[in-house]
């Protein structure tokens, strides 16, 4: 992306429709405030848990690490309970706007399964940190950073194999990717379609995998006829750019960098309770971890927006079709009810992608530079 790129002013309602923009603003505003309220509730629960959670030590006959795992899981269980009303409210909102199709029971089962996955994650996290704390005491966070970065790499590598509802993409999409790979000076990447239309109408795509497991996943909601071939090609070029520019590696490198202050903070705070070697420090560690992640998320999101903007630019260079790109972003705003110009504070704190207005402006800027 050129350093001297200046994005022109664009009218967000142009091509989208003032009514849709208004609806998208209302839609996202509700979700934004619900998110903030849910995070505050989670933090409140974790503050109480950090003060009183140690009483659950008596519910364990497991050793040091096993007890730590129990406390970690219970903390997440309480957070899950505190999030239920917000999640229900959000689900109701999504269903009201026809963005989410699945019923309440499906949602509950999925939420339960997600909690199970969180339990596994926190157990693994505690197994590693508490084992390292036994060896390195208060300096456990230093060796923990490369360990977690390594695990993130492993997960990124394995993720494409863990997606259940996937099928091969149509042949023309594979041909497009091969053509684009040549233009982006990279190896062709496998394209697959993930079947999500049973649950949602929102369109989406993502790049994942490392080395031989590199994949581009397109949700089938993107291929249901609402988006024309040119728009889908822009998406493909954008996702391929993530692979071409090694964004997954860069993302993990950023993660490792952000883990340093995050884990260092956890180690410093839990030091008051004997360090993470002790299970009684786990409730406080959980609070520190969640609060620290929230504090660092604006920085993390800024990095993510930067990488997404770069992928957008490369997609324009690859497809040389700014009209299709503009149409895509407008349709995304319409179909996913995405606010084209979110409030500045929300954009800085929460957005992982450039706003729709900025993305449309970038397409226009590219077009003007080529004229």
């Amino acid at each position, binding site marked *: 992306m050129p350093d001297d790129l200046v994005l022109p002013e664009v009218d967000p309602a142009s091509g989208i429709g003032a009514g849709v923009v208004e609806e998208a603003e209302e839609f996202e505003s509700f979700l934004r405030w619900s998110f903030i309220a849910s995070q505050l509730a989670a933090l409140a629960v974790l503050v109480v848990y950090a003060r009183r959670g140690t009483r*659950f030590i*008596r*519910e*364990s*006959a*497991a*050793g040091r*690490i*096993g*007890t730590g*795992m*129990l406390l970690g*899981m*219970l903390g997440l*269980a*309480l957070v899950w309970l505190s999030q239920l009303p917000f999640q229900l409210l959000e689900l109701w909102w999504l269903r009201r706007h026809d963005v989410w199709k699945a019923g309440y029971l499906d949602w509950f089962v999925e939420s*339960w399964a997600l*909690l*199970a996955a969180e*339990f*596994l994650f926190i*157990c693994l996290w505690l197994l590693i940190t508490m084992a390292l704390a036994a060896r390195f005491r208060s300096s456990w966070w230093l060796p923990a950073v490369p360990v977690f970065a390594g695990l993130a790499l492993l997960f990124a590598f394995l993720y494409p194999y863990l997606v259940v509802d996937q099928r091969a993409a149509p042949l023309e999409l594979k041909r497009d990717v091969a053509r684009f790979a040549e233009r982006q000076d990279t190896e062709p990447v496998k394209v697959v379609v993930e079947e999500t239309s049973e649950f949602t109408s929102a369109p989406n795509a993502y790049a994942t995998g490392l080395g031989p497991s590199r994949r581009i996943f397109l949700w089938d909601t993107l291929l249901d006829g609402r988006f024309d071939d040119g728009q889908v090609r822009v998406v493909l070029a954008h996702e391929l750019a993530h692979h071409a520019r090694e964004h997954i590696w860069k993302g993990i490198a950023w993660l490792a960098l952000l883990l340093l202050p995050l884990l260092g903070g956890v180690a410093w705070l839990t030091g008051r309770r004997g360090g993470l070697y002790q299970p009684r420090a786990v409730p406080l560690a959980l609070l520190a971890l969640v609060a620290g992640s929230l504090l660092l998320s604006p920085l993390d999101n800024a990095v993510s927006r930067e990488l997404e903007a770069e992928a957008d630019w490369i997609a324009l260079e690859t497809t040389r079709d700014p009209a299709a790109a503009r149409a895509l972003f407008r349709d995304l705003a319409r179909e996913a009810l995405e606010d084209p110009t979110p409030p500045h504070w929300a954009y800085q704190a929460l957005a992982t992608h450039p706003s729709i207005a900025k993305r449309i402006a970038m397409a226009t800027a590219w077009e003007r530079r080529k004229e």
Partner: protein
Amino acid sequence: MRVTVSDDFRRSRLTVFFRLLLAIPHFIWWVLWSIAAVLIAIANWFATLVTGRSPDALHRFLTTYIRYSTHLFAYVYLAANPYPAFVPAQGYPVDVEFGEREPQRRWVTALRLFLAVPALLLAAAFEGSGFGGWSGYPGDGYGGDEKSFAWGGGGVLLVVAVLGWFVSVARARMPFGFRDVVVYGLRFLAELASYLFVLTERYPNVNPAATPVSAPSDHPVRLTVTDDLRRSRLTVFFRLLLAIPNFVWLFLWTIAVIFAAFVTWVATLITGRPPETLHRFLSAYVRYSTHLSAYVGLTANPFPGFTGTAGSYPVDPKLPAPEKQHRLVTGFRIFLALPALLVSSALHGLLVVSAFLGWFASLALGRMPRSLREAQAYALRYSAQVSSYVLLVTDRYAFSAPVLEAPEQLPGPEPPPGETPAVA
């Protein structure tokens, strides 16, 4: 109501061989009687609702029906040998005695069918999903017509009866343990019928200790229970999810155990004694899987450790040190274990149903009902014995009797104040 047992374990090979066919006249008679019993049970319900006490004539008819049913199914399930009378007489080896009619609270009577649902679920664990002579207790709401006699899933009674049939034909004796399991099930089902027919408001008790039989046993695998019945509602609510890391660990451990057991099997075949290190490893696995089952099934409250350390959990199997094992038994161990595995699998149903009911009870009360906990402890003890046998921790066959005589005081963790350790 109480069950009396005077059976001497002896069985006539001929009558055992043809037992089901011999029982056909009884089945016909029993179905006819059941139809009448349903109608009379409904009348009894109305009468008890109005007067607060079961009318004498109806009470007599229904108690006679339950006695007859008990005799018949004790015969069918091989808990007794003599051919039962069509009108029950005193002195049958497995009999039911009823006390005087009792006053009953009207609201308990009114809601009887709904209140009986947990007991009916437990009854399903005893009966299985198909072969349901006992599910023919009319009015129990989940069976009772002739269709339920079709072969179906294996409840405890069916599995034990089928296995007991082979043993009785071969040895002319019903094994101690099998007979006692059948009596345990019949006692519970008779109590359930009394409750459903509004003869008593005393709830059916699934605690094995309420069965008037106990078998002598010096089996080296026993279960020490020091649990105080208290349950943490939060950990109960999330119990299955909380156990996920344990499930992962158990899975990995099981893979290692398969190899270790094979090596132990070869070594025991050669030396006649399992190597000490492998025996320790396999014993820890048996203990750990029991701890985990107890945790998931709500038999105990604390989160279990991952190492299967002896004495580290309130429901803890006591396992023997390595001892000399018969080479022939070792050689055919896996085949010999099949009957015990079948019984264990059937008892697992009892464990699951008890856990399901215990989940609601523990959430509501913050305590696990003792009767459910004891039923689970029985299933866990048997399961630990089977695992120990399969994994060559011992060559003593699993003993299925629900109640053991003179439990010895085993060393283990200190019980909480006011709680006496129980040994199943």
